[in-house]
């Protein structure tokens, strides 16, 4: 079973390409407000996560996700 930290590590590495401003990443980093992802980039990032873990992330959860940590928790829940 992958733990929370491993999810975080994957999200950090998956964000490398899209983190054009090289914002330091931690679990409190906001995907839109801090990294500056556009809505299209958020969807591309989500697809990367979905394919890696072979899960589908419902659109419904996205309004509750602002930070990398919040996303890691949701992905962990979905992947159980």
């Amino acid at each position: 079973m992958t733990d929370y930290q491993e999810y975080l590590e994957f999200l950090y590495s998956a964000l490398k390409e899209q983190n054009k401003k090289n914002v330091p990443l931690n679990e409190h980093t906001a995907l839109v407000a801090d990294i500056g992802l556009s809505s299209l980039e958020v969807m591309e990032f989500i697809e990367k996560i979905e394919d890696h873990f072979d899960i589908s992330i419902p659109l419904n959860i996205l309004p509750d996700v602002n930070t990398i940590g919040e996303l890691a928790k949701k992905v962990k829940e979905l992947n159980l």
Partner: protein
Amino acid sequence: MLFDKFQTMADFQAELAERQVTPFGAVTEEILSATEGIVEGHRVILAGTNNYLGLSYDPRCIKAAQEAAARWGTGTTGSRLANGSFAEHQALETEIAGFYGVDNAIVFSTGYAATMGMCSTLAGPGDVILLDADSHASIYAGVRLSGAEIIRFKHSDPDDLAKRMRRLGDRAGQALIIAEGIYSMLGDVAPLKEIAAVKREYGGYLLLDEAHSMGALGSSGRGAAQDAGIEADVDFTVGTFSKSLGSIGGFCISPHAELEAIRFCITAYIFTASSSPSIIASTREALRIIGEEPERRTRLWDNADRLYQGLKALGAKVGPTASPVVAVEMEDRSQTIDCWKALLESGVYVNLVIPPASPSTNFLLRNSVSAAHSTEQIDRIVAAYASLKDAGLLPTSRES
């Protein structure tokens, strides 16, 4: 502040006003025919109206509307569930069901209400919806209201749909898949044979929006599902009367008798007034005409092909195949606005499309073709784009 979130839009409107351009809500001051009008003071060819079969100005439809207004009055003043179900509405439901060869139909007051209403009602909490990523705003609005789990699959990608159906496991058999026939912005046709094959493999239900394909595709004009030979796989077809049928309103047809129970659960159907009898009458007449005049579809596709080939020859960035919707890809917002204005001033009205209405981050000049366009009108549209190219305003593909 409550209004802060509208500031970006207010700034954009101010920019448009300063540039003296009105791409959104341009006022049509006069309609001269199905394909010509006076828009913002310019006499133009209408190439952005979705009037695919040219029936909005058909004398038979106008006469039917006039007679219905004289007989039934100007409006029903009520919901279909109260005083708003006239014999005309019931007759249209019987006729649209018959057109599709099924027994069940609901007529809505708008196409938006039909799509949004069905998508918000069919699935609910505990259910799962898989929708194409480039779905129309009415579909997104509906699924968000539904309370169901919403999963997007990549636009027109049956493999991605299959992957997501597999991930659902036992739930796939109850999933609602949503796709469109012709997509409204780029004019691409969905790979429905492959989507239907995924549904056959994993189960589930398929709702298909034929808003832009009804009348345009299929041997009798029933749309993309008929064209692809997969009508038996479609559980719910939704569509509109405001494009090929030249009026306004929407519908859902289904082989499932349960549609009659669903009718009484759709708030977008219950809590709004029904269509005016004149609207219903002209729609009935238009439906009869498209059944009897298949040559309109032939003319539509001849015109679509002529416009597509003409724009392609100029090097304009168009899609991979001809379609009643021919979108020209532009590079940025300012350039798209300049070109839209130049086209209007040279006598061609098209649609300006910018994100988020366009898929991805595209800026588009969206042309819609009509069976009623003459060859000369199509050539004049191409000539207007050629002028844009000569002025260095039209981005062209590398090979041109």
